[in-house]
């Protein structure tokens, strides 16, 4: 069975600094997708970034980028120039790429605090 592990329950970063959130996963599949979701105090789940396993290039979305290490089954999120609005829970998620199944597996989350 696939699993997603976020080993950092909480992280802090100074405003304008850079922070990296860790995520590891376990799967025997070769085709899959990985995601980072943000959950602010409003509880809404918001997609931050998405990575296809077959792509070697790391995904980037503005200040957010990932370090995808397929062999190590690691998928970390880097937030550059941190802003107060980045404070939230961040969830790493996995989904098999095989057609016919769209079951997502989420990690337990990392709470990010941004210090002014």
């Amino acid at each position, binding site marked *: 069975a696939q699993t997603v592990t976020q080993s950092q329950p909480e992280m802090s970063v100074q405003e304008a600094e850079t922070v990296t959130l860790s995520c590891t996963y376990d799967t025997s599949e070769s085709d899959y997708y990985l995601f980072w979701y943000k959950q602010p105090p409003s*509880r*809404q*789940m918001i997609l931050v970034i*998405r990575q296809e396993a077959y792509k070697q290039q790391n995904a980037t979305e503005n200040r957010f980028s990932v370090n995808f290490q397929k062999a190590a089954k690691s998928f970390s999120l880097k937030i550059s120039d941190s802003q107060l609005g980045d404070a939230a829970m961040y969830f790493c998620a996995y989904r098999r790429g095989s057609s016919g*199944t*769209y079951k*997502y*597996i*989420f990690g*337990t989350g990392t709470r990010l605090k941004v210090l002014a």
Partner: protein
Amino acid sequence: DAGVIQSPRHEVTEMGQEVTLRCKPISGHDYLFWYRQTMMQGLELLVYFNNKAVMDDSGMPKDRFSAKMPNASFSTLKIQPSEPRDSAVYFCASSFVAEGFQETQYFGPGTRLLVL
């Protein structure tokens, strides 16, 4: 688009009562997901639909939970009888498949359920 709509936003009920949560997915989305979020278990997938048909309900307690999608624009998650351990935030999410790849899940604002 108004996004995924969930109702009610908050629900307080007594143990043994029936609870019905409602969800309206984004128009045109053919996948609908129900998740439960608790501090202890994190975000768990309960059930998901494709074109109104249940695709996977392995995460849903069958004895007291039931999910339906009578049409493409409406789904319900019913708990009968409710128990204190059902207290959680319940999220509905929807997505659609574009050229064989499932687009990002869009989450609703969630329903916070408290069973006394």
